[in-house]
C-alpha cells in the first residue's frame, strides 16, 4: 500500500538569526515528515528551536535554507501575499496565551479570520456558531475574553483557528497557561477534532507526559537539531 503524501514535509530546514557578530542557529538542518491527520508533538527545552520550527511551518517566518512543503506546496518560495493566504486558508493556530483580541466579543474574535478570508457576511454567523459548537461553547458569546476562564479562552481560540476549516492545526504550548485538568481537557478536545475533521496537528510543548498521552508521535529537539522521533505508543510501552 503506498504511503499517503505527508501533510508537512521538512527538508533540511535551517533558521539562523544574526545576534550582533554571531549567528544563532535556532533551527539547524531539520528534516521531518508529518503524515496527514497525525498528531505530532514537538518537544524540547526552552531555546531548543521548537517554537521557531512551528513558526516556520505556520508561514510566520521564513527558513534561512531548506524547504517546507505543506500539502505539496513549498511555502519557502511563496510571496508574502501568498503566504498570508496560506496562513488564512491552510493553517489554524493556537497559542499559549490564547491571543484573543481583548476588545472583541467571543463571536467577533471567532469571526475575525472570516473577515480576513473575505467570506460573505451572510455565511459568517453560521460558520461562527458551528466552530463554537465544536468547542462546546454556546453561551456567553457576547462576552469579552477577560470575562472567561483560561480553558474557555483557549476553546474560543481553537474555534477561531477552526473557523476557516484549515487542514493543519498548529498549537504553541496550548496548555502552558492552564491547570493540568483543563490542559488535559483541551488536548482531549484537540484529539476529538482531529478525528472529526481529519486535521493534521503539530503541537509544541515541554510537558512530555501530556505529549505522550495525547500525541501520536513525539519529535524532540535540542539546540535547533532534531534529536529523535518516536511514536507515543512505543514510548509508553
Amino acid at each position, binding site marked *: 500500500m503506498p504511503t499517503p503524501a505527508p501533510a508537512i514535509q521538512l527538508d533540511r530546514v535551517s533558521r539562523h538569526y544574526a545576534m550582533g557578530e554571531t549567528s544563532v542557529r535556532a533551527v539547524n538542518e531539520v528534516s521531518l515528515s508529518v503524515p496527514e491527520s497525525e498528531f505530532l508533538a514537538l518537544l524540547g527545552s526552552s531555546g531548543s528551536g521548537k517554537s521557531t520550527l512551528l513558526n516556520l511551518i505556520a508561514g510566520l*517566518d521564513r527558513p534561512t535554507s531548506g524547504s517546507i512543503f505543506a500539502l505539496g506546496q513549498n511555502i519557502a518560495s511563496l510571496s508574502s501575499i501568498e503566504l*498570508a493566504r496560506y496562513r488564512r486558508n491552510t493553517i489554524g493556530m493556537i497559542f499559549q496565551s490564547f491571543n484573543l*483580541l481583548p476588545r472583541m466579543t467571543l463571536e467577533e474574535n471567532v469571526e*475575525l*479570520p472570516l*473577515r480576513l478570508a473575505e467570506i460573505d457576511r451572510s455565511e459568517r454567523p453560521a460558520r461562527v456558531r458551528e466552530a463554537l459548537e465544536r468547542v462546546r461553547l454556546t453561551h456567553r458569546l457576547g462576552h469579552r475574553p477577560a470575562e472567561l476562564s483560561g480553558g474557555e479562552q483557549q476553546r474560543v481560540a481553537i474555534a477561531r483557528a477552526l473557523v476557516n476549516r484549515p487542514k493543519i492545526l498548529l498549537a504553541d504550548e496550548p496548555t502552558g497557561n492552564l491547570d493540568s485538568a483543563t490542559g488535559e481537557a483541551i488536548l482531549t478536545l484537540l484529539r476529538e477534532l482531529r478525528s472529526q475533521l481529519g486535521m493534521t496537528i503539530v503541537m509544541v510543548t515541554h510537558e512530555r507526559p501530556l505529549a505522550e498521552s495525547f500525541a501520536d508521535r513525539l519529535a524532540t529537539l535540542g539546540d535547533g537539531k532534531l534529536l529523535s522521533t518516536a511514536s507515543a505508543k512505543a514510548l509508553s510501552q
Partner: protein
Amino acid sequence: MKPRDLTDLAFRNLRESALRNTLTTLGVAVGVASFVAIISIGVGLQQLASKRLSESGLFDTILVTPKNNFRGMNRPSPEPETGKPPRPLDEDARKEFEKLPNVVEVYPQIRFFTEVRFNNKPYATVVAGMPDSSRNSGAFDGMQGHFFSSTTADEAILQIEFAKELSEQPSSLLGQDLILRYAERQALPSSTTPGDTPANSAESPAGGFSIVPKELHLKIVGIVETEPAAGYAGYGNGRLLMPLEAAGALRAAQVNDLRDIVRDSASNKTSYSSLSVRAKSPSQVQSIEDSIKKMGFRAFSLLDASKSLRIFFTVFDLLVGIFGSLALAIATLGIVNTLVMAILERRREIGVLKALGASDSDVQQLFFVEAGVMGLLGGVLGVVFGWILGRAMTYGTNAYLLRQNLNPIELTAVPWWLALAALAIAVLVSLAAGLYPASRAAKLNPVDALRYE
C-alpha cells in the same frame, strides 16, 4: 479584507482608544479650524476690498476722450501727428463702444459745481449724474431712503457728508425739497431747441453759448454713505446725485464746456467731451481699453492700480496660507504620534492578525483608514469650528466698528471651495501622516509581535 470589514475594524479601533483618538481628531480639527479661519479672513478682506472698489466704479470704468482735446489749448499733442483729423467723440462712437464685448454701458460724465439752496441758505456742491445701472452696483446698498424712482425724476440722493452740512440730523432730510441753482447753456445761435441734443453735449460749431441762471426743485429721496460717484475726472466726488438723464436735461454748463468753446472741430455733429465706458468686470477693462484706443480715442483706466492690488492679495493669501498650514502641520504630527503609539500598543494585535492570515496590505490599510477617518472627522469639525471662529471674529470686529460709529463689515467668508479644500487637505494630510505608521505596522514581524508582552 473587504472595504466594509476594513472600515468596521478601523472604527472599532478608533472607538476603543476613544480618548486618545478624540484628542487627535480635535487636534486635526483645531488645525483645520485655524487654517479655515485665517484663510477666511483673507477671503473676506479681499471680497470687502474688491466690493468697495467695484462700488467706487474706479476699476471697471474707462474714461474715453477724443484725441484732440488739448490741441486748441495750444499744448503739444501727446500723440504723433498723423495729418488726419482726429475722430470726434460723437453718437456713432458711443454706439460703437456699446457694441464692444463685455461693455455694460456707455454714458457721458455729468458733474458740475453749483449752488444748492436749502432752508434759504446757500451751499456749494458738486452735482453728479448717476446712470440707472448704478442702482445694482452695490454702491447704494445700505443707503437711507431709496434709489431714484425713474431716470428722469427730479430727485436727489445726498452723500452723507453733504447731508450733514444741510442738517445735523441727516435722516430728517428725506422727503424734503431743495433748490438746485444752476447755469443753463443756451447755444448761440438759438436755432437748436433745448432738449434735442444729447445730455452733456458740447454745442458745435464753436459758436459758443450763453449761460442762463435756472432753478430746479429736487426732492431728497436718499442718503448714501459710500461715494458712488467718486471719479477720476478731476472733480472730486459728487455730493448731490441725480438721475443721469434728469441731470443731462438741465444742460448745465460744465467745466469741459470752456474747453469746447475753443475747440476747432470741423464737424457740425454733436460730440461729447468724454464718455464713461463700464466693463462687466475689472478683468475685461484692458481689452476694451485697447479696442477703444484702436478706434482712435484716448482711454484711461485705473487698471494698474487694481493689478497691484491683486498682487497684494496674492501675497497676502500666501502668507496667510503659510500660517494656516503651520497649524495643520502640528495636527499632522499629532496624527503621526497617535498612530505610532497605537502601533506600540497594538503590536500583539497586529501579530495576531498576521497569524490569522492578514496580509501586510491588510494591516497597512487598516492604519491608513484609521488615519483617514480621523482626518475626515477632524476636517468636518475643523470647517465648522473655523466658520464659527470666523463668525465670532466678524461679530467682535463689528461690535468694535459700531462703537466707533462705523458700518459693520463681513470680515470673514467661508466660500464652499474653502470648506471643500480644507476637508480635502485634512484628509490628504492625515493620510500622509498615516503613511509612515501604516507601513511600519505592515512590516512588523509577526513572530516578534507575538512574542512581545
